[in-house]
């Protein structure tokens, strides 16, 4: 069993919506959003984990909780054995920053537009007092730029962010993390704002760094198809809770939860010869508001397989299949998933319908 880097137990975060002055005078009760609603997971050393879900499901909040950018409401969150929920001492917090770093979604706003690349990369060194001279710091900066394959460094060092492409900016953001030598990086949708053509490059870079400098990622994404690429574990989040988690291959090939299955269905077909089919995504409607989480199973309002019990009883984690593959569904491992597929004729019109069923759990075809 590898060493656990991050350990979350019953982790909760509630946001209280800011009221207007007039609302306060009228004494309206404040609204709460349960962004993270009691989740458990572990991230093991050098075993990166993916956190997948629609926007608004609370996955970014988990990242920020780990980064200690916001405070936990309740529950336990340990990073490398230290309880970081009680990390109030600014000096200890600062020291913690060297352990964990974060890559942001939007490389256009995560870099200060008035800083040159050199200043951006020097900033963390200055904050933590690393490097005694400009020369020494320059050396470290050059090394970091080389690590993210922005070479030669002198070509980039005097540029402003607006003079760089999206992919280059994101690499600068990665370099800014690396320069502090962290063990753990929260990557919050690091490629979703980039052009499709450069996504693979950046993901490749991130993957290579795992082996090269012993990194562990928490990879946050809404795009379940990219998780297989470099994560070992996956957690699927819905409305503040992890509804399914387990080894990445297991979860992707044998989803236990209808929501995971729906996410997988939404992934576009990679094979061009199957473009003549349109899969109908089985779930309908929008994700409910975090202020009003449905009772029972939180997914029952959108679940095509929902039964009476789903409205009444909160499901517990079940493990019908392999070790470590858990799902919070009353019928985990018992549902026969159905996908309606429309066949298209050459002129683009619907030629016919077909329903594909997959039976329970099958062995993954490895």
């Amino acid at each position, binding site marked *: 069993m590898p060493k656990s880097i991050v350990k979350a137990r019953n982790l909760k975060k509630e946001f209280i919506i800011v009221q207007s*002055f007039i609302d306060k005078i009228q004494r309206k009760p404040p609204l709460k959003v349960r962004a993270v609603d009691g989740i458990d997971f572990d991230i093991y050393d050098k075993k990166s984990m993916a956190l997948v879900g629609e926007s608004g499901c609370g996955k970014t909040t988990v990242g920020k909780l780990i980064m200690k950018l916001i405070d936990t409401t309740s529950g336990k969150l340990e990073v490398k054995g230290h309880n970081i929920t009680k990390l109030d001492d600014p000096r200890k917090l*600062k020291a913690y920053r060297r352990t964990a770093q974060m890559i942001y979604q939007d490389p256009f*706003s995560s870099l200060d*537009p008035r800083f040159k690349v050199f200043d951006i990369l020097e900033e963390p060194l200055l904050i933590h007092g690393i490097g005694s001279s400009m020369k020494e710091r320059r050396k470290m900066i050059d090394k970091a730029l080389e690590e993210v394959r922005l070479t030669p460094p002198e070509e980039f060092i005097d540029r402003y962010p607006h003079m760089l492409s999206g992919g280059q900016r994101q690499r600068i953001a990665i370099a*800014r993390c690396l320069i502090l030598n962290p063990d753990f990086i929260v990557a919050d949708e690091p490629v979703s704002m980039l052009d499709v053509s450069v996504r693979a490059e950046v993901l490749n870079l991130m993957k290579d760094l795992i082996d090269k400098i012993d990194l562990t990622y928490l990879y946050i994404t809404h795009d379940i198809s990219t998780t297989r690429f470099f994560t070992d574990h996956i957690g699927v989040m819905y409305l503040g809770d992890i509804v399914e988690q387990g080894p990445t291959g297991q979860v992707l090939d044998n989803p236990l939860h209808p929501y995971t299955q729906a996410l997988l269905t939404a992934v576009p077909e990679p094979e061009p010869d199957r473009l003549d089919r349109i899969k109908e995504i089985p779930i309908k409607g929008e994700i409910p508001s975090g202020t009003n989480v449905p009772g029972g199973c939180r997914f029952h309002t959108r679940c095509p397989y929902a039964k009476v019990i789903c409205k009444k009883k909160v499901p517990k984690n079940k493990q019908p299949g392999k070790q470590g593959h858990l799902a919070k569904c009353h019928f985990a491992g018992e549902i026969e998933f159905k996908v309606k597929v429309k066949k298209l004729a050459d002129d683009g019109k619907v030629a016919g319908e077909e329903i594909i069923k997959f039976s329970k759990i099958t062995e993954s075809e490895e």
Partner: protein
Amino acid sequence: MSIRIDDIKERALSMMKEFKGQRMGMIGFSIIIFLLAISLLSPWLAPDTDGQWANPGRWEDNPRSAAPNWADYILPGTRAPHDIREDYDELDRTFMTIKYVYENEYDYPPSDITVFVSGTSSESRIRLYIDLIRPDGENILFVDESVSITNGTFSYRFSLRSSAGRDRSYDFGLNAHRDFFPDDLTPPDRESVNIQMVPFAKLNENILLDPESLKGTYTLEVEAVGIDEYDDEGTRVLFRGMKYGLMGTDSNRKNLALGWVHGAKYALIIGGIVSLSSISIALLYGMTSAYYGGWVDEIMQRANEILLGIPIFPILVITMYAIGRSIWILVLIYVILGWRGLAKIIRARGIQIRQDTYVEAAQSLGSSGGRVITRHMIPQLLPYAIAEGALMIPMVVIAEAGLSVLGLADPTVVTWGRMLSEANQYHATISGLWWWILLPGLGLTLLGFGFITTGMALERVVNPKMRQR
């Protein structure tokens, strides 16, 4: 905070390099430096001006309403320069006569001759003659008077602009006029004649209405019968010029160049105080509002909205009238009210920046709140604040000038506004004293141009996104 000296130095140097690339900004900045330099040098450049502006004695030796010296280059005709004679050119001891020789080679002859005579005598009375011998041989006797001696000394002052001087000049002109128009029963009266020019005018039919300068050598003779000795200190003659100094004089003989220097000084002082205070208060107020958010923000914004509704002009009029005509009251009112608009912009920008991920990124790198504010938020907001603050300087100075014209000028200081207010009061416009209007106004314009272009250039330097345009 772990910012090192060499970092700051390097950053400042590179910013300076970039600023130098902005042509308009450099021009504007040079103007500011120029104004700043003459303000700092004002005690030496323009001594005894500030408190003496309204004291006529301070300006006694100057010509009245003289154009600037450079007027000759841009306008037709040549103007007599200001010529002060401390020493006579010739002394005839037998008649105790002193002579001053004046070479008039100008299209606009001197605006006035002022003669100061003093001396000692053992008699109780002496007889004093002052006359002007013209190049055409004509002789105008201006003074023929008996002067009494007290304690053995006397002093006497004569001016072409005194009533005696005007009488003699008019008589001289009228005689000439009669020679040409013997039948004219209604010759132009004294008020409609350009009388100070008559003694220097050609003897022709236009001598009264449109006199023409008679060029040549004039001799001013002073004869004091019964005098023992002239007093060299007290005996002097002023051939007052039609041009004077860098900026000319006003109709009360005040040297406008000296006033202008102090005008620049006060403009920078009041503008500087107001803009600095506005920038700091606005930054503090706007950032607090943006940083805390919630009900603090709500209350602060409501209060600011009310402040924004207060018109500043009537408040200025009423307080300066009721409490005192002082630039410091104007400064106080602007310090109280000047920041309100800027604070609103700062708050809006501050909220925007707080939502930018790079602020959060800085936190996750381990930056303290103070570091985030000083390294990321203030640098982002400062260009706006400075650009707006720079615009505020001309605004305040123009407001001061306007209030001066309304009659609320501070009597203890010299400002461009006060100079313009006097120009209006003494009808400089309809007398054609263009320099009196143009130059102080040019000060206002230069100040405005300087600060606006500098502010704009500075914004481009600090905000690299804009530089690409």
